[in-house]
């Protein structure tokens, strides 16, 4: 049963995330947890934009907050976001990973250890290699990895790096990722 979906995005990520979230309906039960590399100043705008694109509730992940189903969370700027065993969030200001904080690698790795085969991870457009190592752990613990087709990604490096290191269960154009998540979530409930 798919309980959570983690998403990593960087350059070009805002419009990709909006498009992805627009495709999720009210019945989508997994928690959605997003790392988008953003300048601090742009963060509140990003939350508002995603809220406007999505029928599910969207908020910034808080330290120690219990993770709710059917809710979309964003990693706060300048903090790594981690998932703890009791399905609560933890933050850290430890060193940058792949030159970024928050890093998708940190989120993916901690989420993979908690949700295992009940996790889906999505690597979207981005101009670095963050997320690749986390994606590899997601797959090796039985989770499902979806990678945006690098050929149509605004910045191909991040999905390409994930494919090189982790392979993928599905390589999809952006407009087919949300339908795939809906399908995975529905299969879970059957």
């Amino acid at each position, binding site marked *: 049963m798919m309980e959570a979906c983690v998403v990593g995005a960087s350059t070009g990520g805002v419009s990709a995330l909006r498009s992805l979230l627009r495709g999720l309906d009210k019945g989508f039960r997994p928690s959605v947890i997003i790392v988008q590399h953003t300048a601090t100043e742009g963060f509140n705008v990003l939350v508002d934009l995603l809220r406007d694109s999505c029928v599910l509730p969207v908020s910034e992940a*808080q*330290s*120690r*907050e219990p993770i709710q189903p059917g809710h979309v969370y964003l990693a*706060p700027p300048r*903090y*790594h976001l*981690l*998932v*703890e*065993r009791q399905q609560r969030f*933890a*933050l*850290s*200001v*430890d*060193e940058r990973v792949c030159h970024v904080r928050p890093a998708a690698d*940190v989120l993916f*790795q*901690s989420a*993979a*250890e908690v949700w295992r085969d009940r996790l889906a991870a999505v690597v979207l457009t981005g101009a670095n290699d963050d997320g690749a190592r986390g994606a590899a*752990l997601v797959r*090796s*613990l039985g989770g499902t990895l979806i990678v945006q087709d690098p050929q149509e990604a605004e910045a191909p490096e991040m999905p390409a790096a994930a494919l090189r290191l982790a392979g993928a269960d599905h390589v999809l154009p952006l407009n087919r990722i949300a339908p795939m998540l809906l399908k995975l979530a529905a299969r879970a409930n059957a």
Partner: protein
Amino acid sequence: MHLTDRQDIEVALFTEALRKRHGYDFGQYAPASFKRRVLGLVTALHLRSVSELTERVIHDEGFIHTVIERLSVPVSELFREPQTFVALRERVLPDLASYPHLNIWQAGCAHGEEAYSMAILLREAGMYERCQIYATDFSDAALAKAQEGIYPAREMPLYLENYRKAGGTARLQDYCTEKYDLLKMHDELRANITFANHNLVSDGVFGEMHLILCRNVLIYFTDPLQDRVLGLFRDSLVRGGYLCIGIKESLSFSGVASDFHLLSRELPVFRRTATAAP
């Protein structure tokens, strides 16, 4: 068994070894970030596994210092999260200005960035002469670095930006000397700072404090340890004393929340309520 589960066993044994061999208890650190740090330590020291780390912690005299240095609070910035300093300048210091002498405890000082930022803030408020800042950490290596007050000059643009946003009234360059690729904080800032070893996990109440700063430390603790530390802060503060935590931290998930009240909804600055148990 998956590698990650074997690593969990290793991290548990490593934690046990640190406690039994050296008396450091990391058992109440938030597990996900603690595991990351331990695995980071294995990589940084070019070891094969956490088990090898454990072996060295037990048998290698002196190795513990390296471990503690790496597992302690990470490096900060001058005037990190500058909006907090604006709140201190505008809301907290005017209220504390009536005291003839002020004790300030900066808990988890790492390399001292925050203690120096506080010293600068107090100087600009004309209050530094009657303040004593206690900057504490459980890592002696960190305390030695904090005492030196030397930071990489490449961080200066970030520090300048932070200082500007913090509402600094002078020039940051007036408080430090840039030489080669290093910045050295001026001695006069250190005059009323005492750097001391204190472990929030195991040590007790610390004086009669008017203000306690502990930012981005509680995020690494589990609930029971967070509550212990907040209780320690409550009991170390004078009535009406102030507690300042990180902008992404809150007391919402804590048992001692009722002993403090929030000063402003936007910033995590709290005041000890008059009715709190002594």
